[in-house]
Structures are given as C-alpha cells and as structure tokens.
C-alpha cells in the first residue's frame, strides 16, 4: 500500500490507519489530508489508529502536525482508538500531543467533531463575511 485512503463523510474526513506506518506513508498522508481539507472544505478530521500497534516519535510528531495543519485550514482533528501500549510509548517518548483531541471510539470521536462544528458554523456567518 503506497497511501492511506482519506474518506469523505459529509463535512468530515475519515482516515483509518490499518497498516504499520512508515515515514514515507506518513508524509504522503500529511499531503493528502491538507489537500483534501482545502479541496472539500472539511471541518473535521477523524483519524482512527485502533489497528496501529507500533509507534515512534516520528509518527507521534506526524499526528501532532496533521492536527496543527488542519487547524490552520479550519478543521478540528480527533485521534481515536489509541491502544494502551501506543499511549504508554508516546508518553515515555515525552510526546503528550497537546493540541490533539482524542476519543475512545470512532463513534465518540464523531460526536466530538459534530459538537465542535455546530457552534462554529452558526458563528461563522457573522464573524467572517463571505469572500
């Protein structure tokens, strides 16, 4: 597999990582996500890493980067389903991913994103005039 699929679900992007990440794949994913957000105007990105069992500092930074980039593009990121071993490894590596929101399951993550999207969309119209 040379790239991880980025699926569109309404205003959200759904990414499920089901293979072991290597650096090239991670870089490709960053490109794809930013591309898709700007293309489809997505307001939320959901990354499911429940099948990810091995993680290193690069992958950790990649997750933080995707979250930061999405925020710049106006989308929230939620990482869901992190395995205990992965969480412990990231903490031991000193990466607490401060800017990333997390949830236990895809369902809970979706809820978070919808909650976050609802007030912003209503507030957008008067804050930011249509260009």
């Amino acid at each position, binding site marked *: 597999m040379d790239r991880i699929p980025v699926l569109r679900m309404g205003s959200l992007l759904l990414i499920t990582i089901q293979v072991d990440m290597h650096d090239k794949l991670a870089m490709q994913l960053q490109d794809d996500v930013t591309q898709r957000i700007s293309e489809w105007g997505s307001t939320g990105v959901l990354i499911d890493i429940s099948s990810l069992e091995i993680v290193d500092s690069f992958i950790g930074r990649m997750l933080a980067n995707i979250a930061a980039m999405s925020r710049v593009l106006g989308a929230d990121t939620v990482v869901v389903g992190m395995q*205990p071993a992965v*969480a412990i490894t990231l903490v031991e590596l000193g990466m607490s991913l401060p800017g990333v929101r997390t949830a*236990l399951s895809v369902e809970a993550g979706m809820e978070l994103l919808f909650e976050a999207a609802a007030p912003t969309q209503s507030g957008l119209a008067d804050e930011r005039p249509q260009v």
Partner: protein
Amino acid sequence: MKELAEIVSKNEEQIRAEWIRDMGKSVQRADLMSQVELEEQCRALLSAVAAALKSSGSANLSAAGWNPVRDLLQEISTSRARQGFSPADVAMFVLSLKQALFSVIRRDLSGSQDRLFEVVWTATELLDRLALITTEAFMAAREELISRQQQELLELSTPVVKLWDGILALPVIGTLDSARTQVVMESLLQTVVATNSKFAIIDITGVPTVDTLVAQHLLKTITAARLMGAECIISGIRPQIAQTIVHLGINLEDVVTKAKLSDAFALALQRSGRKVVREASAPVNPISSLFAKREE
C-alpha cells in the same frame, strides 16, 4: 576415602534407625510433616549419600556422582521452605546425621585411633558441606517465595473498579514507584479500552506521600489516558499532600483534582450528562402508591 564409604554402606540400616531416633529428640516437627514422610526422606538421602560416596568419594561434592544427593537436598529444603520450617530446623536435618554416623564409625574403627580420627574428620567435613548446600537451597526457595509474593502483591494492589457505565475508579494504595506505576498504568488503560470508559478517577487516599517522582508518574498515567480519549480525575488528596504539592512546585494545573472520591464521581457523572436525584416522595409501600395513582 574408601573407608567412610564402606562403613556407610555396610551400616546403612543402623545409621538410619539411629538418625531418625536422634532427630526425634532434637528437630522433628510432627506438626509440619508426618513421621512416614520424614523416614522416607531419610532413607532416600542416606542411600543417595552411600551411593555417591562409593562412586565419587567425598573430596569433591560438585562431582557428577553427587548430583542425585544435591538434587535430593534441594528438593527436601524447597519443600520444607514451603512447609514453614525454620533455617535451623532444615540445617539440623542434615547435621543430626552426625551422631548416628560417628557412633557407627567409632564402633567399627575402635582399634585404631589415627584411622578413627581421619574418618571422623572426613565425615564431619562432608556433612557440614551437605548442610551448607541444604541451607543455600532453603534460602533460594524462600527468596523465590518472597519475590513471587511481591509480584502477587503488586498485581493485587491495583484493582480497577467500575463505578458506573463509562466511569472507572482506581484506588491506589501504597507508595507509587516506577514498577507499580507501570502496572497501574497498564491495568487502567486496558480497562479503559475493555469497558469503553470516558472517565477514570485515580484515588490517592492510600498513597502515604506524594513527591515529585510520584507526581510525575501520575501525570504520565493521566497523559496516556488522555491520548486514548479518556479523562482522568485525581481524588483523595489529603490536606498535607495538597501542601506538599504546592511546596514542591508540582504543576497539576492541567489535571482535574478533587478532595474526595465522591466529589470526583459527582463531577464525572455531571460531565457525562447524568444526575443523581433523590426521589421526591418515595412510596412507603406498593399499595399506597397504587392509591396515589388512582387518585390522579
């Protein structure tokens, strides 16, 4: 030392009888093991010693011929460690063989003082070394017992309990060191995944002191739980511990802390959109509630 071997194998029966009799006087523990079992052990050990003496002599106890004896002693002392014998009891088991052995040697070699002394010396050296082997094996068995109990204590002391749907509690009891934190963290995170819980309350009422290291361990656990999408609340902070935390300059600002487990539980319920209410007028008995319904 051919002579010792000869004497032992010739008088095996008699030595054993005397040995068991001597032991009855000094170290027998009828409360811990039966007479039959003890006699069986004596017989096995003595015949193993006789065979080893014949085949390899008494000069080198690490020779292959002594392997059965060493294995036997190991087995005996391991089983005694489990049964609760004291180290002295176990050493005396071997050392009490001396008297029986010496009296046989003395009878057989009463003619020659020199030979008698020589054989007695060989025998005493041999038995001392056997006793040392026994004690060592006993200690090893005890140590193994202790480390296994420590491990069990470690696992027992970190239960993760479910308070409500989606709310877990982890009462930590005892000092949090690195090894325990690892166990605590793992069992908490596993349970978070298994029960799909959004909230975890870490109760540190049972933690005697909180220093920077303990705080660091707690923060690690909380961060790991957050990464998985669960929220942690620390509860059970005693007044002294609150003071210590502030004096040490530990930053717990990103963590929700409460004084009591009940406060933390109330907060978790509230955050998960639940509310505990007292029933306004609980019916005293079912019949009166029926009447109440009819009146409506």
